């Protein structure tokens, strides 16, 4: 019964952690028990390095029905419906096996959503890869996009947006984040907990195999090394997805929930059955007996610890009362979903793993200790020694571009090659498709009653996911605040009122004090911005150990914002100019953009130093409150936030979007053309509406700068830029097909 040191270390536990387990049990754990603690106390499952800091995030608000800690956050959307929202990372599996890594990321996030009783209605994928010049990065990018398409399309949930970014910092360690939103009748909300002694735990879905064992501990909670053979050897830790199994599982589970047949339900993700059984028991304040021999398996000869920690995909654990069991099995049979009774709810709080109901007790641990007693680390934090020096190295000192028009064209990347591969229209909800500032969807789903009849304006939700490693590398606190601000502004640009966010915190190795400092600063920046903008954080995910060959990635917190529209009367104007319109820039008085961390400085000049432009959160909030009304009013022909690439990129994107040029003045030099600053939007406004727009903007305490007029087929910016719109269009459109094929 003694656990020797080599065993707990091989499972990813430190000596201190092994000693703590022994203290909790009052005896030495056996192999199976050690395996349970190893997965549940992994960084991925326990958030042991980040939990201390995450507590500082604001998580409450009037619309929040469920905050962080459950499978997904849930926000009241009005009219009796609620939105469940969750974001996750699948970075490490995708680095090793891009197609399956990304595909199973999609599968996992979907289960988190329908676990809550919600029908998944939208996916989004913020993606970051190494440079397009790098062969392996291109291979990863192509595989990830194909995996998302292959799984998401087949499982029947539309992928409505995301991001795609290429930068050297992600070489060897791509970021594959995946977001899902689901819709549920408010009264169908279910939580992942077991209650009622004598109730049964029924395992639904795929058989359990040896795939993905140790995914959370070996893969997700350690960085990548120089040893190619060692990395290749991790490939079997990546799971394999089956979207058809998941599709049937979704339909079966939603029917079980509709018919009121389950007391609680929990997905099997990281740490598999070990997590699902202990978590449901722990949350419900009960215990559970698990008969490991009852688990339907895909291969013979599996050890109990393998069955308990396998991360085989497409599985759920439903807690049902004995009298409902027959009907549960019937519903599952109709959908060709396998179902096995593997557990019984007990009193006393122990998780017992049994070799047959009357067989040997293989493990016997207090369920709650797997969660509540997980270690909590306050790891050392240190500001990087070169922080001030980098901030002082202002890219404004770089030589001005000889041809700003050429630099502008080089900044444009049209993501259409990516999102064309995703079904982004299923369920007939997608009003604003990928490629705009934010996705805008009607709030409707099969099986979810609506309070709006035919002919009445529907409710809608907007989603935007955003991150910016350049900003956060310079100053994680200010950079993260800027990311929150941009995400909220994107949602407002399609006419929605931002109401909540979820985050995916992608950072390097937390055992490096500089990385812990970045994480802590980013959380503070996010807290400040979210508090000021009234945005509770309803869920999140922390992905650490994003490092490759000794290099930590630039800190890349990704924020996804949910916005709501109570009455959607018309499509939002979108990113476009209309001929004959006036082009208006809205910004706070005294705005001075900065080239520090800008797309131009980093991507064109390779200069990664400098300072970020300041963020006035009060002014930003006023802009967020102003925009939905302007957009809903129907007088604007186009609207676009000014973000990466500055005014130049925003003008070019609107020109390309509308297929119309513009002749504008304003930016005096390349700093004003490419510099970045928050709280700015460009509007395309018909001349007759300009006065009313000016008045509304002034009422919000913001400035309007009239830049010029839209028309013709060239974008002319003072003496700086004179480019054919068709050329700008082609420049952006050809980047991804050129690099990634087809």
């Amino acid at each position: 019964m003694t656990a020797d040191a080599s065993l707990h270390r091989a499972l990813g536990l430190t000596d201190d952690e092994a000693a703590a387990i022994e203290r909790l049990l009052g005896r030495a754990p056996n192999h199976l028990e050690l395996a349970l603690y190893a997965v549940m106390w992994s960084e991925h499952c326990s958030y042991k390095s980040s939990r201390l800091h995450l507590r500082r995030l604001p998580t409450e608000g009037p619309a929040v029905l469920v905050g962080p800690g459950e499978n997904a956050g849930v926000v009241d959307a009005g009219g009796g419906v609620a939105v469940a929202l969750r974001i996750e990372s699948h970075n490490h599996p995708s680095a090793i096996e891009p197609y399956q890594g990304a595909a199973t990321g999609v599968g996992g996030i979907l289960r988190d959503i329908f676990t809550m009783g919600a029908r998944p209605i939208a996916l989004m994928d913020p993606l970051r890869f190494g440079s397009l010049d790098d062969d392996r990065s291109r291979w990863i990018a192509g595989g990830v996009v194909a995996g998302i398409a292959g799984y998401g399309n087949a499982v029947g949930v539309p992928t409505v947006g995301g991001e795609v970014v290429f930068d050297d910092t992600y070489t060897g360690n791509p970021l594959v984040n995946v977001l899902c939103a689901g819709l549920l009748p408010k009264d169908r909300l279910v939580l992942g907990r077991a209650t009622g002694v004598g109730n049964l735990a029924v395992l639904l879905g795929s058989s359990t195999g040896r795939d993905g064992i140790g995914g959370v501990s070996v893969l997700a909670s350690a960085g990548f090394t120089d040893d190619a053979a060692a990395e290749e050897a991790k490939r079997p830790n990546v799971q394999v997805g089956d979207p058809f199994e998941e599709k049937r599982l979704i339909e079966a589970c939603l029917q079980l929930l509709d018919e009121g047949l389950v007391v609680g339900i929990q997905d099997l993700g990281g740490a598999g059955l070990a997590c699902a059984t202990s978590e449901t028991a722990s949350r419900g304040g009960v215990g559970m007996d698990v008969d490991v021999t009852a688990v339907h398996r895909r291969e013979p000869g599996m050890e109990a610890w393998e069955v308990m920690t396998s991360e085989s995909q497409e599985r759920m654990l439903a807690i049902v009362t004995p009298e409902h069991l027959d009907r549960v099995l019937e519903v599952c049979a109709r959908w060709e979903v396998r179902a096995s009774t593997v557990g019984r709810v007990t009193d006393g709080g122990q998780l017992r793993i049994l070799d047959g109901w009357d067989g040997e007790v293989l493990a016997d641990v207090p369920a709650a200790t797997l969660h509540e007693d997980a270690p909590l680390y306050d790891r050392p934090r240190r500001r990087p020694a070169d922080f001030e020096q980098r901030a002082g190295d202002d890219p404004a000192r770089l030589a001005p571009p000889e041809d700003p028009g050429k630099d502008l064209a080089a900044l444009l990347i049209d993501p259409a090659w990516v999102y064309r591969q995703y079904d982004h229209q299923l369920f007939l909800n997608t009003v604003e498709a990928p490629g705009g500032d934010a996705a805008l969807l009607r709030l409707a789903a099969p099986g979810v009653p609506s309070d709006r009849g035919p002919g009445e304006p529907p409710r809608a939700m907007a989603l935007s996911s955003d991150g910016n490693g350049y900003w956060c590398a310079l100053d994680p606190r200010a950079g993260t605040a800027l990311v929150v601000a941009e995400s909220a502004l994107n949602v407002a640009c399609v006419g929605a009122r931002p109401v909540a966010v979820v985050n995916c915190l992608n950072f390097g190795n937390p055992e490096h004090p500089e990385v812990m400092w970045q994480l802590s600063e980013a959380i503070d920046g996010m807290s400040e911005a979210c508090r000021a903008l009234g945005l509770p954080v309803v869920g999140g995910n922390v992905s650490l150990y994003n490092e490759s060959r000794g290099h930590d990635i630039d800190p890349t917190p990704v924020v996804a914002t949910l916005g709501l529209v109570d009455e959607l009367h018309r499509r939002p104007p979108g990113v476009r100019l209309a001929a004959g319109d006036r082009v208006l820039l809205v910004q706070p008085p005294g705005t001075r953009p900065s080239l520090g961390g800008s797309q131009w400085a980093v991507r064109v000049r390779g200069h990664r130093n400098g300072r970020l432009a300041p963020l006035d959160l009060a002014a930003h909030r006023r802009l967020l409150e102003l925009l939905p009304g302007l957009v809903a009013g129907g007088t604007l022909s186009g609207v676009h936030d000014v973000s990466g690439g500055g005014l130049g990129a925003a003008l070019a994107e609107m020109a390309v979007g509308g297929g119309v040029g513009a002749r504008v003045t304003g930016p005096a030099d390349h700093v004003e053309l490419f510099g970045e600053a928050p709280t700015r939007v460009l509007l395309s406004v018909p001349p007759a509406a300009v006065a009313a727009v000016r008045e509304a903007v002034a009422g919000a305490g913001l400035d309007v700068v009239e830049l010029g007029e839209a028309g013709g087929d060239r974008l002319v910016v003072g003496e700086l830029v004179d480019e054919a719109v068709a050329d700008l269009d082609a420049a952006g459109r050809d980047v991804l097909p050129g690099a990634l094929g087809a």
Partner: protein
Amino acid sequence: MTARVGVVLFPGTNCEHDVLAAVDRLGGDARLVWHGDAHLGDVDAVVLPGGFAHGDYLRPGAIARFSPVMGAVEAFARDGGPVVGICNGFQVLTEAHLLPGALQKNRGLTFLCQTVELEVVTDRSALTRGVAPGTRLRIPINHFEGNYTCDPATLAELVDGDRVVLRYTDNPNGSVGDIAGVSNEAGNVVGLMPHPERASDPLLGSDDGLVLLRALLASAGARLPAATSAAP
């Protein structure tokens, strides 16, 4: 009397609710038909909607054609009933030999979800009844295997028999003859890759798909007793 449309649901189908919603919007009476049932019930038209029946495993439509409901679909089609296969449904109809040809992977070897322009080629199909040939429609496609192919003799038969129902004006997937949809000889069985139900509301960017779905309801209505006998 309202036209009753049976929408067949295979495991893995995912566009069934969208078709129900679009038919409802036009005042039709759409209901789901489970793939495991050997009969269709009382319906005046059948739609095989899009998705991934049986996961598209083996080949799109290859397993679905053996579902019990397909015998009933075949009998309904033989009896002249309007049967429309959309996307995956088109693939099922070719696998079931209710329509000629096959759908292979797109020319560019990627999945394509985008709005395309179509031209109506004939008005003698159940899906284009009363729609003027030459009419242009903007309707989304959403497929990996949408590249229609058939041998030259079949292509000649399709063209000569006025059985090409819809053509792409800018071929996105490599389909032979720019074909987006075809019919059987009688014109009552139609398969098309584009999704008319996805263009059923101006809020979504186009409602051109209603032109086709309205024609389908008219074809279904033509089989109703009330429509076949003269009104008093």
